[in-house]
């Protein structure tokens, strides 16, 4: 059988501190196709960020392997760009320089200086931030920072875009706006995306498939839900769409009936 684009095979992860071993992830297997948008949803503490970090290469799996296009993933790299929850922009660089740092590193040898500048500007335009290119992260709002973070990740032209609760720290209106932008960008660039979220509507709206995780410790993939909605999707029309309501209900049921959040977790 031909391997799919991104494969997570029997990944376990446990952390050992002293004599205590904490098993966080248990036997996680997932196949992701090219250009697919996958959300991973679960209660906090279920290890979904750990799973993303394993795919990013920032954390090593205890057992199990991640393949990207048949290659084993064992270290971080720009082919799996991460948009961090807290944006992680470098505060001493301007927005332009933050993106350019990634562009220069990834395309330093293959693109000329002018091409790299155009590439950087193009990514800033994609997230509608070209007006703020000379401002520093401390001078722009949280939503704008996250947009720069997305521009930086896109600028690496990653095979997989990893989003770690990218909109978690934003207010509801900004979040809506950014979700629409991410949908637009994904429709345009056809990126493969793996997104961590704890927002049910966000997951249903953006994803092709939703991976639902059980509660930790030893979190597993509880269920995978196909979201059979046509693209482009419009959040206003979807509000009364049957498929949307059904998908939303399924995720809510999973999270609040079958795997209620345990306070102690």
């Amino acid at each position, binding site marked *: 059988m031909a391997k799919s684009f991104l494969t997570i095979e029997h990944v376990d992860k446990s952390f050992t501190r002293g004599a205590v071993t904490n098993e966080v992830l248990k036997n996680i297997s997932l196949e992701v196709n090219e250009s697919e948008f996958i959300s991973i949803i679960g209660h906090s503490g279920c290890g979904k960020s750990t799973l993303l970090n394993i795919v*990013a290469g*920032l954390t090593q799996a205890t057992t199990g392997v991640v393949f990207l296009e048949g290659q084993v993933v064992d270290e*971080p*790299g720009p082919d799996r*760009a991460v948009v961090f929850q*807290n944006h992680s922009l*470098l*505060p*001493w660089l301007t927005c332009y320089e933050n993106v350019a740092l990634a562009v220069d590193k990834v395309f330093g040898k293959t693109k000329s200086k002018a091409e790299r500048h155009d590439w950087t500007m193009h990514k800033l335009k994609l997230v509608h931030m070209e007006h703020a290119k000379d401002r520093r992260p401390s001078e722009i709002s949280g939503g704008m920072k996250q947009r720069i973070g997305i521009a930086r990740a896109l600028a690496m032209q990653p095979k997989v875009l990893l989003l770690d609760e990218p909109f978690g720290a934003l207010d509801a209106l900004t979040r809506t706006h950014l979700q629409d932008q991410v949908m637009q960008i994904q429709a345009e660039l056809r990126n493969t995306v793996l997104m961590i979220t704890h927002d049910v509507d966000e997951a249903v709206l953006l994803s092709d498939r939703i991976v639902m995780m059980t509660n930790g410790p030893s979190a597993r993939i509880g269920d995978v839900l196909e979201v059979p909605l046509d693209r482009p999707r419009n959040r206003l029309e979807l509000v009364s769409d049957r498929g949307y309501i059904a998908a939303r209900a399924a995720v809510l049921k999973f999270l609040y009936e079958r795997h209620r959040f345990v306070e102690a977790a």
Partner: protein
Amino acid sequence: MTQIAAATSNVTPLKTPTSAAGTVVSLPAPAARPVFGPRARTRLTELARAIIPPLLTIAALLLLWELLCSSPTSSLPAPSRVVSDTWELIAHPFYDNGGNDKGLGWQLYVSLKRVALGYALAAVAGVALGALVGGSVWAMRGLDPVFQVLRTIPPLAWLPLSLAAFRDGEPSAIFVIFITAIWPIIINTAVGIRNIPQDYKNVAQVLRLNPLEYFIKIMLPAAAPYIFTGLRIGIGLSWLAIVAAEMLIGGVGIGFFIWDAWNSSRISDIILALVYVGAVGFILDRIVALIAVAVTRGTANA
């Protein structure tokens, strides 16, 4: 206070047009254009607020000193005597009669040159060693205890040893500056680098920055506020140490000038030299602080 009141009343009329939506209100023509615009005036009052209190304090202290030392039998000269005694030195800071007989400007220049060299070496070596200790757990385990012991050794205690090693006063003085300034630079740099947020390290890892790129693009800017704290402490300590070191090695330099003045009982010269030493130390500290502000602009939490 009246100045401030005048300044604010000058500002208010300019604000009204923006609040009156749509209608254009013509400003009342000023009767006479003031010499300073309202902005310049607030600047001046701010400047006055910063300068007048220290000036008053200094004046009060000088007055007290004058009163205490005005009797002819007093062991220390009053400020008025200091000025009259040392007028030649104040008026001609750059005379040169050969040998040690040089103006205070030259003496300070020589001392500053030694500090500049020793401090520059300490800054480079200190940041490099600090980066090593902050970046590697094994380097920290091995080196940190050594540094903690060495840094408590008083600067002057190194002088005999360095004289023995270098067999010359000049490199010994520079070495003393180096060894004085390097500890706070190492320790603060190491703390700064240990405190680099994991987020920045993740970004560097995803981008696959090589160690040199990581050092220049992430480590130095992220640790810059800490590094500059160390550099600022370092420059202060160097200036403290140079005076003492020069007293012992002799030759030209503000330290030996003070010692020489003491040996020839020119107390007023000592007092003048102390004033200069204090002023130069203050300026050095300000310079490093200003560089720090310029370099670390924006590195505070975003």
